[in-house]
């Protein structure tokens, strides 16, 4: 099973096994990762599952759709070049080791 590594704003890393097809957001909630709020439940209406994707992985993700791009505009912590919404990232075998950093605040 692919692994996803969540790095908190303070720098603490946690590695989680994630079934293929699960989103990075859903896996965070299931595994008790603080720092992902997921207020709207993963439908691109809020920005509270914002993550910074590790540069080595960012280019391997399917590009963000317009709805996601728009939501990143309202992120509580300003977006960066590798910003994504974790509800829109589905884990695949190719993404094994995917590392995401959590912003300091989501609301």
């Amino acid at each position, binding site marked *: 099973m692919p692994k996803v590594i969540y790095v908190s704003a303070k720098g603490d890393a946690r590695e989680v096994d994630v079934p293929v097809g699960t989103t990075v957001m859903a896996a965070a909630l*299931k595994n008790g990762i603080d720092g992902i709020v997921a207020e709207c439940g993963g439908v691109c*209406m809020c920005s509270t599952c914002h993550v910074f994707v590790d540069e080595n992985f960012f280019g391997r993700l399917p590009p963000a759709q317009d709805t996601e791009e728009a939501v990143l505009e309202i992120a509580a912590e300003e977006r960066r070049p590798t910003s994504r919404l974790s509800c829109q990232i589905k884990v695949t075998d190719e993404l094994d080791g995917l590392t995401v950093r959590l912003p300091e605040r989501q609301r």
Partner: protein
Amino acid sequence: MGAGTVIIGTGQAGFQTAASLRSEGYEEPIILIGEEPQIPYQRPPLSKGFPLGQQDFESIQLRPERFYQDHRIDLLAGKKVTAIGRDKKQIRLESGARIPYQKLVLAVGARNRKLGVEGAALEGVLYLRSLEEAIALKDRLQSSREIVVIGGGFIGLEIAAVARTLGKSVTVLEALPRLMSRVVAPVISNFFRDLHTSRGVKIVCDAQVLEISGENGRAQNVKLQDGTAYPADLVIVGIGVVPNVELAQAAGVKVANGVVVNEFLETNDADVFAIGDCAEHPCIFASARVRLESVQNAADQAQRVATTIAGRRSSYRALPWFWSDQFDIKLQMAGISQGHDRIVTRGDAESHKLSVFYFKGERLVAIDSINRPLDHMIGRKLIAGGAPLTPEEAADESVDLRKLEHEMAQRRTEPASS
């Protein structure tokens, strides 16, 4: 069980209050009590992905069960609160047990408005709000062929889209002249009427339901006052909700169209708060007292109450926003359009890319968007920041809203010099 904060209601508002209290550093006991037997879950998918089978219960839980233990939240699911004793600061459960509180949060929500016509109690007339009702509806959808939806609001139209996607014959009966008329402009109503019609849903407006007739206790026909009848083996009623105010009222907490709260979300008892679907609050964006039924309202009010209980009292000022998914179209709404006196559009319905800007005098008060997500998201900032956007600029596609928003944000951070 010790005092601390007692939260009544395990919906999104109740859940978020408990979660936010802990993330705000609150150390006292937290008791989260609700009548529903399940752990807190999201309601929006119940009229969308859940009946389509795209989401199951596990995927709509707000947090897994472990979360509550990990955060020392005492979750009492399936428990009914029968009274609030404000003098002794305790609540009473149906079992007779009493639980003391220092702070009490009423996140008791709303219940479905019942259809008041003959035959409304027949078997095969269903409502949708709780998981239990959603499971029954999903089950019933499988075995039904002809479905009549009473009510052309968000819930009615979302479930109509689901039923049609499942291949059913679907008719929507709306009492008013157009769909979702309480909240959106005619151009949006018409867009969704055309969308549903093009997918094979029959939309009937100005439809006054007279009665539901049936045989052997089962619904078979929905009859209108004008004499027309629509055969149905399943009738789904989505005609709005009524706030659950009775518990508060019996305890001497002031109620109107909901539990009345001030800008701090406090009731007339400063140790008792009300939030979410049940709370009538002063809304700076509506310039009126409103009661809103939405995820945003529930979550943001919960966050605000948690901050106040944790010792940093501040007023509630979040911008309302909403969404609705019907077929493959997402309607995004920012602000409160009620009381507007002018609308302008950006984009057009033909291209399925359309935003409607609502103005009250000079002030931009709301934006509804279809397939123009940037209008919606930037629009939230523009409305919240009181942007000096004119109707002419709103209608002019060459005016870059993002640039306007950046300029507005910059002006805010610069010291006022003139």
